[in-house]
């Protein structure tokens, strides 16, 4: 019987109670946390304006991560934010579709946070999309569960901003590489926010280098939660990073 820490869903106040259930997974009994969600408006009265944010975190080896670990820690204890560590919950990629859909239904802003692997996300996030975004749930005539919600990509990459440009060795911008995610959001009736991207991660030598990004990430998440971001301004923004500081100094040169 695994303890809850093995599948940490964060100390979110809105997940009022959690229940641990053992699943006989392919290669071990993996503890899955089944979340019993409160009804949408029941205990939100005192924080009326706040949105619920779900961070779907995908990193196959967090233990050797530099950037994502720091980023994740920055948003760990933010209220109304639930961190869902996919590789930790589903180490055999056996995703519990119902639980995931319940989680989605309960949150207003969905964040895909992951390192940028081979111009995309790590495998589990693709598996998650393939299974969870079902016809009749996420798309199709009756698939309206995600309508009006927002999707945000938060990712880190070794390459510089220049590397991800027409002239760079990757020959395309990050926004171009992220099109599949963007279109996925659109098809599900969600709006796709400008991505939050950390470039040049291989040049960081210590956590201090990452700290400014981490603080930005936290304040942006809080602002999103409190609905303080201006929609029009957002629409003009290429990277979410620029919303706070329009200068490019954060973009790892």
């Amino acid at each position, binding site marked *: 019987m695994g303890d809850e820490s093995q599948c940490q869903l964060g100390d979110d106040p809105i997940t009022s109670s959690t229940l641990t259930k053992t699943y006989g997974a392919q*290669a*071990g009994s993996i503890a899955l946390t089944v979340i019993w969600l409160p009804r949408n408006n029941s205990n939100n009265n005192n924080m009326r304006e706040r949105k619920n944010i779900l961070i779907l975190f995908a990193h196959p*080896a967090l*233990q*050797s*991560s530099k950037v994502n670990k720091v980023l994740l820690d920055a948003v760990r204890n933010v209220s109304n934010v639930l961190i869902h560590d996919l590789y930790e919950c589903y*180490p055999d990629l056996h995703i519990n579709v119902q639980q995931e859909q319940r989680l989605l239904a309960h949150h207003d802003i969905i964040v895909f946070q992951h390192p940028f*692997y081979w111009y995309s996300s790590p495998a589990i996030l693709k598996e998650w999309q393939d299974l969870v975004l079902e016809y009749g749930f996420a798309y199709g005539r009756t698939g309206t569960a995600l309508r009006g919600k927002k999707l945000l990509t938060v990712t880190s*990459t070794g*390459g510089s901003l220049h590397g991800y440009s027409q002239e760079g060795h990757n020959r395309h911008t990050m926004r171009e590489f992220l099109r599949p995610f963007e279109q996925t959001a659109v098809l599900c009736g969600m709006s796709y926010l400008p991505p939050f991207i950390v470039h040049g991660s291989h040049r960081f030598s210590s956590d201090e280098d990452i700290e400014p990004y981490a603080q930005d990430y936290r304040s942006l998440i809080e602002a999103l939660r409190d609905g303080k971001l201006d929609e029009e301004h957002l629409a003009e923004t290429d990277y979410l990073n620029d919303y706070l500081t329009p200068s490019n100094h954060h973009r790892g040169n």
Partner: protein
Amino acid sequence: MMEDGGLLYQAFIYLVAAVCSVPLAKRLGLGSVLGYLIAGVLIGPFVFQLVGDQSDVMHFAEFGVVMMLFLVGLELKPTLLWRLRTPILGMGGLQLTATTVVLALLGVVAGLSWQSAVAIGLILAMSSTAIVLQTLSEKGLIKTQAGQSSFSVLLFQDIAVIPILAALPLLALHDPSASIEALRQTHESVALEGWQQTLAIFAIIAGIIIGGHFLMRPIFRFIAKSRLREIFTAAALVLVIGIALAMQAVGLSPALGAFLAGVVLADSEYRHELESNIEPFKSLLLGLFFISVGASIDFVLLLNEPLLIFSLVVTLVAVKLITLIAIGFLFRLPTTDNFLFSFALAQGGEFAFVLFAFATQNQVLTSEIVDPLILTVAISMLITPILIVVHDRLLQPRLNVSRTADTPDNIDDINPVIIAGFGRFGQVVGRLLHANGFNTTVLDHDATQIELLRKFGYKVFYGDASQTDLLHAAGIEQAKLLVIAIGDPEKVMKIADHVSKNFPDLRIIARARGRVDAYELIRRGVQLVHRETFGAGLDAGVEALRCLGFRAYQAVRAGRTFKYHDEEAIRELSKLREGEAQYISRSIQLRAELEALLQRDDEQFKNYEDHAWEAAPPRGK
């Protein structure tokens, strides 16, 4: 010649005769029944004179018929029996009436009194359950339409014996009071008034049905728990013999009672076990019965009156044959089935011997009439297998219809998967298959287990799966997959050997206790081998890694790497012998390989940084 050499001598003679002639007859395509009959003729008083008077032996051996009907009952679920009600009552009733009428008319024409003629008609209308069912089931034809029709008629005849026994004394030639006296004698064993007897009959039948339904299961469970195979066999025999005695006590046919008990137990989980326990007794007793029929043929009479006997046999067979063909036609049997049905039933039956003796006792018939008729019946039984051979070889090809033995009309649904052993291992397999909509036939020898599983709707049968007859009863011929989930390695090996030899196409998944058993199984050609504790141990190992701080995904991958490598190693090491130098050196080598493999996996995780895949960024950009 030795008149009476004691039981062992007698048994020896009968068995030698059977062992010599039956395989020979089968080899010649004549069927075992003819083999037994010929064996009987050979050891009988008119050829080698090895055995004497047959009436005692025959009486004893008739019990084989009782057992056979018990087994037939076991194969027939009540629902199926209900579906057969029309052929049983319709075909059976018509056969008995029509044959009796025709034979009786012939008797009157031949100058007999009408009473004698009717008695003879009734007695000769019977066919031989033993010969017909044995022959048909040997050919795998029981489940064809011909087989079912034959069975229906025979069942009706068995039931009809009871009223016939009651009615025969009324046909007595002399004064009526004697016949009433005789009637009373019939029931002397009970010495009850009419209404009491009726009550007793109903009580017995109700007892069989209710007892079979509610009592037998706990009793068999209790006995099965003792895990003594011979006690289970003894219990099965007690059941059959007990019912036979009870039925006799109220003047009913023991065969009918046994049949009823069989039907009641057809739904029971002990069915297969009962079948495989009773089967050898039944076969031997029936064989004995056939031998005694052969030995009782009175060749002196035959030699003295060849013409009379010959014409009697021809008349009997012809009348029965024609009547049966007409009935088959009336009930719209397909032509091929009709011929088989008619040829199969065109003989006198074993009940004739009993009834003739009874009729003589009651002065319905005289022995001058009865003796040639008994001989006629015996000869007609002797020629039945010959008639069927004629039918198969000469008639059937002309009808130009190939008879397929594998008719879809199976009494039982055959499941594609058999799980042998439903303990801690087999249950996991079975539950997973069940949950995914696959039906399984489960064999287990733990009675408590079975009871529990039945509550959850599993189809579980009691028995030792390493007994190959149980595997056959469970339908291994039709199965697609066999899961050997028994804990005892010896039994696992035994089943694996038997199955891979006889059913090379059947897939086997086998449980191995450990490495050594796994080697054994792989060497025996079983491809899918699973060590019983390996999976759980591996899971625990993965959990341990997580407790030691591994991320879940890394722990799971490490477990997988270990598992695949270990399974590969087992496969490879199974080619070597344990303890040999080569084996030891190769194991050491493989262990080193695993270490390297795990090391590499570990490195991979360390390098799994955020930008791992683009680790070497172009300089200056």
